[in-house]
Structure formats: C-alpha cells, structure tokens
C-alpha cells in the first residue's frame, strides 16, 4: 500500500543538494510518436490500417502483416499485469538515486505486451490501467497503475517522477493582477500547494484580483515586473531556490493589427512582457530550478507558460500580440531543451479568448478564468505537455495540424 507522503521538512542547510540525473534517453523517430501522444495526454498506439494489429513498441512496418500503413489511434488503456519485478540495483545513475523501482509487463487488452513502470499498489495478475507519460528526460514511457485509483496514488514516488503534482510544492505565479492569475492562485491552493508566491508589478496600479489573492492563506505577494531585469534578478535571489513550479502567466493584450494599428510602442510592450519577460525569468530562475530537479521528493518539476492559442496562428485582429505569443512559444521550446538537463519539464497551456476586460469585444465563447485555471492545473497534474483550453484553442491546434493554410485564411472572419 502506498504510504502517504509526509510534507517536506525545511531544507537542511548542511546537506548537499543531489545533482539531477536523467533516465536513459534517445528514442527513434517512430518512438517519438509516443512522445506526441503523451504530450497531449492521449493513450494512442500505432494501429495497422490493413490488418488492425496494434503495435508496441512503435515501428515502421506492421509486426503482423508488414504493411507500412501504421496510424496512431486512441486505444483502450486497460490490461492485465503479467509479471512484476522490483529493481534493487542499477548501473543507471537515474535509477540508482531512486531505488527500489518497480517494473512490470502488461498484456494490453488491445494485444501487445508492454514493459511498464509500475505503481506500488499493482498486483500481479490483476487488472491495470496504463498511461503514456513523459519522463524526466522528456521521453515517453508507459506507466501502469491499479484499475481503480488507490488511496494514496498521488503520493506514489515513482508516479510523482512523471507528473507535476503541485501538492506540497511551492509555486510562483508571475502575474497576480489578472483574472486568470487569481484563478490560478485558487487552483494551486486547492491542489495543495505548500506556498504560492504571486508577482506584483507596478504596485501603484491597484488590482481587485490581487487584493483577492492577498486574503488567501499560504500566499506571499512579491514585487515582480518582468520588464525590469533588476526586479526579476532580485526576486530570483530571494526565492529562486524555493520555486518548484513556475507559472509564467504574463499577459498584455491590446487589440489591433500590423498596418491597421501601426504602433511600435504597443508592439514593444507586448514583446517586453511576453518575450523578453520570458527571457528574464528563464535567465534568473531557470538555472536554480534546473539545479533542483532532483532535490528530494519535492524538488522543482515544471515551468508552465500560459500562452494564447494565437501563438499557433496569427489572428490579424490581434496581429502583434499573436506574433509576441509565437515568439514566446518558440522560446519555450529552447527553454524545454535546456531545462530538460535538470529534469524540469516545460508545459505550455494554450487558451482562447478569456472573459476579461481586454476581450470585451471578442465574440463568445469566452473562457471563464477560474474554470480555465482549474483545467490548467488538472492537466499539469496529469503531466500533459501541451494543454489546449477551450473550444477555440482546441480547434486552432487541430486545424493547424490538418491544414495550416486553411486556418490562416479563415481565422480573420
């Protein structure tokens, strides 16, 4: 039975912080198909279009009929645990730091036998449910857990390695002055975060949302202006080694196109906040978060960016804003590669228009900030890497995959 994880004690200042180690890396091009499915939270495997055989591990041609018509399809995640073992020794540095480690073989309902990382409460011969997860090195792995969630499943140390559970972790929400900032603070508090740091820029502009946050427990409001290098540096010096989940929800929405609203100053502000702001945050908080990727059971795990879905395709009504979001999205991929060396994962949420003052003229449907925040934190707990929130974001991403030229032209209307 998985034991309840006790809340972390204060850090012993004379103990050395363990350096991060990575699980074995390098996957084939085909195997990264699993990474794509895991990134969006799907349980999908290659399926042969000719003979319907489900494949595992991923391959170029069907193991049954040699056809190369293999398609990724969502399949049942159920199976039976055929065999299990507990690793007590390993020459791999990652597993050495984490022994004992449970592994098993699951006979999937859809056919193949799959080597899995095994939750503590799984019993040989019983039903399990599998998921595609992303490990600390950023690669897809298969995890199995009991068919019905066990009592302390979220405290399972092995499972915690693949997820970004905010429980007992410390979170920094960059912008506490927006509707979504307030929603995120509440959602992380509900998820059991041990401490929530909330950034406040331009303290002379009073925000009702920040005032609401101020009333919450376990919240520290800190000066933070992502356009001010000194401010970011000072805050990182103060709390950088305490941030286990970074939430970059920087937000500066001004409507207008490129030649329809030709204004370098507005474009400058968008880039300062969304793009240069991310650079400043990453430069100051990234190194210490990366160094703390293996700092006990509650070390740093995730860097969450909240982007607009228009990072994927430019909405001409929000032309320069969309471009600044695209720039930040591109940068997040660099950050992902760099933080991966410490096992810290970069997660991007993509939201459609949200119900706030700057989206006053955006047509419904608009996202409710609190529900949006709850969904973001929920997806974070599941370990999903790209999180589209709401119908607008889901549709944009789907249509970008299907036909980017179509959505590029259709988005204006």
């Amino acid at each position, binding site marked *: 039975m998985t034991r309840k994880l006790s809340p972390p004690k204060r850090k012993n200042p004379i103990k050395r912080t363990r350096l991060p180690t990575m699980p074995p890396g390098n996957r084939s091009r085909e195997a990264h198909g699993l990474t794509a499915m895991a990134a969006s939270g799907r349980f999908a495997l290659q399926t042969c279009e000719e003979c319907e055989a489900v494949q595992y591990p991923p391959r170029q041609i069907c193991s049954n009929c040699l056809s190369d018509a293999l398609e990724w399809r969502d399949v049942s995640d159920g199976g039976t645990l055929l065999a299990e073992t507990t690793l007590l020794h390993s020459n791999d540095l990652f597993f050495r730091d984490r022994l004992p480690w449970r592994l098993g073989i699951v006979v999937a309902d859809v056919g193949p036998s799959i080597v899995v990382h095994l939750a503590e409460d799984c019993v040989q011969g019983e039903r399990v449910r599998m998921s595609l997860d992303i490990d600390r090195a950023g690669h897809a792995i298969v995890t199995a857990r009991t068919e019905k969630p066990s009592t302390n499943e979220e405290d399972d140390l092995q499972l915690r390695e693949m997820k970004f559970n905010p429980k007992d972790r410390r979170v920094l929400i960059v912008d506490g002055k927006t509707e979504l900032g307030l929603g995120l603070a509440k959602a992380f508090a509900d998820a059991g975060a041990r401490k929530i740091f909330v950034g406040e820029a331009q303290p*002379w*502009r*009073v925000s009702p949302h920040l005032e609401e946050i101020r009333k919450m427990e376990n919240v520290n409001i800190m000066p933070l202006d992502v356009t001010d*290098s000194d401010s970011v540096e000072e805050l990182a010096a103060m709390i950088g080694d305490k941030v286990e989940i970074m939430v970059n929800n920087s937000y500066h929405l001004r409507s207008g196109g490129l030649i329809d609203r030709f204004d370098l100053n507005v474009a400058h502000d968008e880039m300062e906040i969304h793009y240069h702001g991310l650079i400043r945050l990453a430069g100051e908080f990234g190194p210490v978060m990366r160094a703390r990727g293996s700092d006990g059971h509650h070390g740093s795990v995730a860097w969450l960016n909240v982007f607009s879905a228009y990072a994927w395709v430019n909405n001409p009504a929000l032309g320069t804003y969309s471009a600044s979001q695209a720039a930040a999205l591109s940068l997040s991929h660099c950050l992902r590669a760099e933080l991966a060396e410490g096992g810290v994962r970069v997660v991007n949420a993509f939201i459609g228009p949200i119900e706030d003052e700057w989206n006053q003229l955006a047509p419904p449907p608009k996202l409710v900030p609190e529900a949006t925040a709850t969904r973001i934190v929920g997806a974070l707990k599941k370990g999903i890497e790209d999180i589209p929130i709401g119908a607008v974001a889901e549709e944009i991403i789907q249509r970008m995959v299907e036909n980017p030229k179509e959505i590029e032209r259709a988005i204006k209307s």
Partner: protein
Amino acid sequence: MTNPEKNNPGLLSSLLGGITGGGIQVVDLTMTLDQKSPTIVLPPELGQSWPFRMEEISRYDHRGPAIYWNNISCGEHTGTHFDAPIHWISGKDLPNNATDTIPPEMFIAQACVIDCSADAAEDPDYLLTIEQVEAWEEKHGRVPPRSWLLMRTDWSLKSNPVDYLNLDAAGAHTPGPHEDLVPWLIDERDVIGFGGEAVGTDAGQAQHFNLPYPCHHLMHGRGRFGLPALTNLDKLPPSGSLLITPPLKIRQGSGSPVRVLALVEPQA
C-alpha cells in the same frame, strides 16, 4: 577683436573660485533614475511612456573584459525631467520649442522657492495660489522676470512609489499650481517656467480644472518650461539660487531626463 578675459577679468574665475571653496554650494535637485521609479500613470488604453530600464552591455566579463557599461531606455518624461513647449499641443507652433532648438542660455536661470510643505502634508490636493505667492513676495521680494517658480512640497521624500503617485479611483492626488496662478505667473511675473516635486508639474487632479492641465497648456503655450520630479528643494534658499537645467539635445525632443543643479550662494 576684444579679449573677453580682459573685459571681464574674473567673472567666471570668481564663480569657479566660489564653487571650489568660496562657499557656493552645488545642490543636486535630481532624482536617481531607477527601474522602480514610476512614470506618469495614464489610462491603459492610451499610449504609455516607457519606464527607465537598464540592460548591462558588459561588466568586465566575456562581453567586454575591460568595460562596464549599460544600454538604457526610457520615455522623454522620466524621472527629474525638462518639459519643452512642444510637449503640449498649445506650444506646438512656437519657434524654438524643442530640446534641440531652445536657446541654450535658457537653461540657466534663477529660482524662487515657495515652501508649501506644510500645506501639502495636510492636503495632498493642495494648490498653490496667487495669494500665497504674493505673501512670499512680501518677505523675499518680487519674483524677478525669467525666474523658475519652484513649489517645494517635500513630496519627493515619499520613497514608496505608491505614496509618491498617490492614486485612487479618482486619479492622482498630488499638489500643484492653482489654475489662476499659472497665467498670473506668465503675465504678471514673466517666469521662465514652473517646477515641483511630484511626477508632473500640474496637480494630480488637474484634468478636472476648468482649463485642464493649466501648467502644461498655458506655460508651454507661452514658450515656458516645466521641471517636474525635483528633489532637495528644502536645501535651496527662497530666492537667489541659480539653476542649470540643460536637457539632452534630442532632435524635436519634447523633453528629456535632466540633471538639475542649483548653485547656492552663502546667505549673508
């Protein structure tokens, strides 16, 4: 050719002698440009002035082993700054109205300092009136033409930007000149400009005056200047100090951050 040194043997050297040991004190009236300093707060849908920002180019490191230097950026009206007549629509058609065309001798002028610190402490919306300037004149003499009229409020002592800007739902609450005082200073006293300690020369609530922003509209409309966000006005005598206020020579600049120096003679 006349030799200016022969004609004025010692005007400048006696000034220099005064500065280097003869009792003329140099008072810095400038706030430090700091990334945390606020600029004027406008509704968010309007164009915004950039705050002061600084990015290191190198600091004796791989980017420049022997060199420390920074790139800086800010709006023209950041920190202690000079307002040129072209800053306001009323001054847009005046000759020599921008930082590059104002005659340089205009950047040296004497100052009259009126102490309103007690009034401003009681009422953040305090407005300096003609009557109070006349009362000052009874003690210190008539405001000479081509003088700066400086309003001392001790507002610059508010180190917290929230207190300094003093905003609420009705806008900013900071002291400034009464709307009747501004035309009087121009017409009756021919001042060179008006200076104060708050973020702008006009009072925080000046947009609600009958003539909104009189210190901007009238002063700049008549070719006069502004010097907001001054500090150390408590270190100046009521009259007789000399201000040096040259803004950066920006082509068609509407103003610029400025290092304001005051020369103060020993009081007899």
